[in-house]
């Protein structure tokens, strides 16, 4: 099965973990997904391999960026009627506070979904959702190959 077929099968069965496990990099980061109400929450399980500053200790900025980007991509995959693999055009992260060595959660909102481009806002938090550790906005190319 192609990636798109596997993603479609995972979506049909409502199996979030399958959706995440299809992507090797998501497994590398320890990502999982679940629905809370109508929100798709992506969680990056803490592991020592995610540390960027062992002295504080704090998560590596790259891991937070990758979580935010992954959340945005899964949001687009989950919400889309027909799956098109989103290609990141531009990705901007604001780092608001250092990431503690605990699980980190992210959720995305698609602010605009056009024919060619989708704009997505993302936020990541740890214990308290009201104090995000990082936010991002991303712009994706969402066109089918060859169209």
């Amino acid at each position, binding site marked *: 099965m192609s990636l798109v077929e596997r993603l479609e099968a995972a979506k049909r069965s409502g199996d979030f973990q399958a959706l995440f496990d299809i992507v090797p990099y998501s497994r590398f980061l320890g990502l999982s997904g679940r629905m809370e109400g109508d929100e798709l929450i992506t969680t990056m399980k803490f592991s020592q391999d995610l540390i960027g*500053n062992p002295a504080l200790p704090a998560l590596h900025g790259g891991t937070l960026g990758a979580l935010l980007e992954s959340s945005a991509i899964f949001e687009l995959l989950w919400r889309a009627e027909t799956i098109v693999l989103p290609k990141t055009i531009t990705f901007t992260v604001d*780092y608001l506070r250092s990431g503690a060595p605990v699980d980190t959660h992210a959720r995305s909102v698609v602010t605009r979904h056009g024919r060619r481009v989708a704009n997505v806002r993302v936020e990541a938090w740890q214990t308290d959702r009201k104090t995000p550790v990082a936010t991002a906005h991303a712009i994706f190319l969402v066109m089918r190959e060859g169209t």
Partner: protein
Amino acid sequence: MASDDKPVRPSRGFVDAIPHNKALGLKVVSFQRAEAIFELPYDEKLIGNPDTGVLHGGAITALLDACSGAAVFAALTEWQPIATLDLRIDYLRAGDVGRTIRAKATCYRLTRNVAFTRAIAYHEDEADPIASSMGTFMLGTKAAPAAKKMETP
């Protein structure tokens, strides 16, 4: 590589002392006045699209973040803790499967509180970049004593 007036030489410490850089398999290629070059060898665990084998954008984000931070340290004359304020990455093309990605970051402006960086990611030819980025870093953030270990190569 390091000049006499520049005591900050983290070099290999950037990988050995930073678990996530190690997990990614990053390598420090060079580290000199206000510039850092890192390499991310191709690794299957970092794939974003299993159909094509192209690496995930997140791995390139992590590479550019780490390399840009190193460029700030390379610009500082005195060690101080830093924190990324923001990082914008433009993805210009997909990386080639199986090839190492190199990042070159420059700290082009250093003020008392903030450092400004730009970086590009490419395979071998800087004129054919995979991604480019701009970053800002806060200087003199919360002290982190053990991170001083990075000072010694």
